[in-house]
């Protein structure tokens, strides 16, 4: 994906969360957004995923600009997949029903076609035995993996994942990161917001540091995480890295 962002501005009420953000990635497969809380990472991700419309500025993937009107955005959202930090899955449906929901109600598959499509991914990621369970019977890691699967089974152009492991304990975090690592290996394009720097180093083609509503640094992971010259960025990593 080739992501071009120009002059992106976003406000919530009187607060300006994105302040003229610029980002030009070139052709990459995975982008990881890092930075302090409240810096604008999630806000940016929501705009990229087509959930929110910015106040000003433009976003284009592979030369195609994101629309500003809701019907076009809905059509766009159907071509991508998004996962949030928690409460992704419908609690009143089983894991399988959650997976079938977008396939049947949005993409017009019949139930049998949908079931056929989800069978292989469920098995590949070791979730087939859990498919009949409700979210209340699943661990946090299983829930997040089913949520990512649900985003995947519609065969999206790219995935947007907002801190998928921030609400999980270390063991479940590892389980989810392993899945995302495998997706990277399979060639899936994604934009990931995370605090897991070790993981970011492994899977990111590019890392962008978002702070004060702007991109403060952008480049290959090692360059940003280990060798960045921007003081603000360096002090952030100095504090959080072991």
């Amino acid at each position, binding site marked *: 994906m080739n992501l071009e962002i120009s002059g992106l501005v976003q406000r919530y009420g009187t607060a300006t969360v994105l302040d003229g953000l610029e980002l030009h990635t070139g052709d990459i497969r995975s982008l990881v957004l890092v930075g302090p809380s409240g810096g604008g990472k999630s806000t940016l991700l929501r705009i990229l*995923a087509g*959930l929110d419309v910015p106040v000003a500025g433009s976003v284009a993937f592979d030369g195609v600009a994101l629309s500003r009107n809701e019907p076009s955005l*809905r*059509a766009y*959202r*159907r071509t991508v*997949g*998004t996962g*949030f*930090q*928690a*409460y*992704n*899955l*419908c*609690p*009143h449906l089983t894991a399988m029903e959650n997976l079938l*929901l*977008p396939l049947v*109600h*949005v993409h017009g598959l019949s139930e049998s076609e949908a079931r056929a499509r989800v069978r292989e991914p469920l098995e590949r990621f070791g979730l087939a035995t859990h498919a009949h*369970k*409700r*979210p*209340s*019977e699943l661990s946090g890691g299983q829930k997040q993996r089913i*949520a990512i699967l*649900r*985003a995947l089974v*519609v065969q999206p152009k790219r995935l947007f994942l907002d801190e998928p492991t921030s609400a999980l304990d270390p063991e479940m975090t590892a389980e989810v990161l392993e899945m995302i690592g495998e997706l990277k290996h399979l060639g899936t394009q994604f934009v990931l917001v995370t605090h897991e720097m070790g993981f970011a180093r492994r899977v990111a083609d590019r890392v962008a540091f978002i702070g004060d509503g702007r991109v403060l640094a952008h480049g290959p992971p090692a360059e940003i995480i280990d060798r960045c010259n921007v003081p603000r960025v360096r002090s952030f990593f100095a504090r959080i890295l072991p």
Partner: protein
Amino acid sequence: MPRWLAHTIVVALFAALIALAFSRVNYAWNWAGVWEYRQKLLQGFGVTVALSLTSLIVSTLIGMLAALLLGSKNTLLEAVGRVYVELIRGTPLLVQLLIGFYVVASAVGLENRYVVGVLLLSLFSGAYMAEIFRGGLAAIPQTQRDSARAIGLTPWQSFRLVILPQAVRLVLPAVAGQFVSLIKDSSLLSVIAVSEFTLAAQEVNSFTYSTLESYLPLAAGYLMLTLPLSAVSRLLERRYRYEA
């Protein structure tokens, strides 16, 4: 101890206590006199059932509409909802019935006290339903709506497939409670001379001077309506809870 046994023991103890209290009062029971008026009581019971059922449906609809108003981004619409809810919840049903029937309905030319009674009762209960529905909708995490949008569901699909099923499970206990209250509140329609169950019991009492024999069947009759309602509600809650 099995639950049915425990329930039966407690009810039996309670009944024994009541029987004991009655035996000390030296009351001259006159069931025969009241028995003569059983037709009247039965008719009143029938009217109460009809009024309650109709009001249940209408108040649920009003409640949904008001909940939509309360959640509206339009300040005027939200104001309509808020003023309605606060006014109705803050004043006694008695006052609403008297002013509603003798002043407003007369002014508008609506004379049928049954129709007006159902309308007023529904407006009353609807305000409480509105708050119940609004609370239920607010309790659903925002991420659920975000997820539904992210999948590409239309607003109607999101509401039908994601939001509504969760909201129904959340509000079921409170709505059942409101239904039970509604059935009992319908007794107040007697003040605008609607010939429902309570008015029938009052009239039988005035004919026979047998107060307890008139009102005990009244209590039993309402229990016959409210107990099944509670049981059905508990059944539905068990069937629709999130754990398998």
